[in-house]
């Protein structure tokens, strides 16, 4: 079976390494406090809803300099695009990963399963890098 290679942005949030499908990423910007107001981010002269992924995963916001992903998402196939800003600790790299190279993550009774669907084991570090579900990103839009 042929396996589709997809590009992912490898990001870091505290101790957690995550992958977000590059298809959803419109831009990566560096965030300064002046651009943030009431959980929104000023981007291209409009305020986007801002989600702090580190705060969501660890309960602690990142106070120092951080990167922000501008995501472009569609709720339905024929819906219009919506933009969302997701603050992360840092952007590490872009990884091209075959679907077949991902492993299933265990089906646990905790909300981690709502955020991640599969994991990629880094060949060098043997660290699990969790792939963020699209539904989780969409749920941020609803919040």
């Amino acid at each position, binding site marked *: *079976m042929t*396996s*589709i290679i997809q590009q992912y*942005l490898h990001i870091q*949030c*505290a*101790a*957690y*390494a995550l992958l977000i499908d*590059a298809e959803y*990423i419109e*831009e*990566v*910007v*560096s965030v300064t406090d002046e651009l943030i107001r009431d959980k929104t981010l000023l981007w*291209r002269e409009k305020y986007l809803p801002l989600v702090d992924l580190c705060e969501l*995963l*660890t309960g602690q916001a990142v106070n120092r300099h951080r*990167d922000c992903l501008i995501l472009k998402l569609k709720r*339905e*196939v*024929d819906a219009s695009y919506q933009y969302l800003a997701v603050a992360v600790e840092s*952007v*590490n*790299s*872009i990884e091209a990963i075959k*679907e*077949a190279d991902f*492993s*299933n*993550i*265990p*089906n*646990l*009774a*905790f*909300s*981690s*399963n709502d*955020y991640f*669907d599969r*994991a990629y*084991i880094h060949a060098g*570090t*043997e*660290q*699990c890098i*969790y792939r963020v*579900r*699209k*539904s989780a990103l*969409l749920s941020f839009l609803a919040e």
Partner: protein
Amino acid sequence: MSELQESAVTKDYIVFSLAGELLSIESSVLLEVLEPVPVSPLPLVPSYIDGLVNINGEIIPQINLQVFLQNEFDVTYTAPGSGNSTLLVVTIAGQLIALSVGMIQEPLQLSEQQLDFSSDKECYSAFFSYQQIQVNILSPNCLFEIVKSENKPQGKRSFLGEIDERKENEQALKEYLYIRSEEQVFATLLADVYEVVDVSEIKRQPNSPSTVVGVALIRQTPTLVFSFQALLVERRGGDVNTPESIITDEQKDHLYSLLLIRRDNLYCALLVDEVIGLRLIAEQYINTGEHTWQQVITGSEGVVTAQAIVIEDFFSGDLCEKYRAFMPSLSSDYQLQKVPQQELLQFYIKGDKYTLLLSDVVRIINNKDIHPLLERQAFLTGAIEFDGLAIPVVDMGLQLGYESILDSREYIVVSHNNENWALAIDGVDEIVSVDQPSIDVLGATEKSVQRSVKAYVCVKDMLLSILDVDVICSTNIINLDAG
């Protein structure tokens, strides 16, 4: 030993240390005993889950049993030496779990008579006496709360079995073409569609079946056009009204979107309202719909995103014969020869139009802040951030002999030797598709001749230059090195 004692049911147990005490577990749930392996922390889980570990290619949770049983053990206790030094891989409700424990003592075979089931702790199923110490048996049931119970196979699994299962779990992705018809979204396998074309005119076909819209000229070939919606109604067993209203005089300037279908015995087109685009769909999202022959595609949240249509169903046996009388005869095979197409991206530099092969373009980006170079090098004006990396920006105005493009807000990102470059331009125009043979490729030159144009093409009576990405980028590398 009496006959009764011989026939008594015995079970195997493993005794291990935990926080300075002894504990045991039934061997039937135990799959493997391992030394500790690297753990990846997992967010949004209780503190007793250390994280995930990779055991023989499978990612499983690692439970710190000492923390999990915090009501029974002192969580602050650290055993002399290395602390928890063993992983017990167990299977609970079909899910493999690694239990982080102390040292393994020895396996025991115990009969029911040797066990005391009077333990009032939910986490223990029984206890027994071992070297004059009371040893509790860990109940697998207490670990159930960690695992989601839904759709989990019961019983013991082996890693060999897992390998087979993983093969089945591999996502088979299929490419679907999404279309819209009568306000509904449908999807058909891309492999079933020969080509997607837009035509400006469809001639009515008098006295034809009610599903036929008319005849359109596609690449100089008359092609019978069916109404996708009417075929769908017919397939569902409904009455099809003659689609008189589809082609009206008010729609003279309208372009009709057609899906060209080509089989051994069939050459026709399906008229749809709109071609939405392509999507890769995993098999798990393709489900049976209202009718047994009908399939639907759902999103990850279970919402139906499209009805999946098998085009073969529209033209099975009798139906195909019924329509054959109205199909153009296709007098010669050459009419069906598809002319290979090449897509070009048109853009402006100081009012002049240029093009790039779309296959050379990685992405078009805009509104990026450019970080200037301390010292101008060749035609490079600075760098911009792209997908988290800084990439060089080439001033295409300067490179092509115009004035500098100082206020560019639009960039075409191209790839040269696996590195991305941004080309600063005045603005993107449109993407056009041209017949590949119509592109006049320039002949080979000496390497010393730096020629930014690699081909010419005529689009809508306008001669356009197709720029050579490799030359544009390599020119800047050479000059940068020299500088």
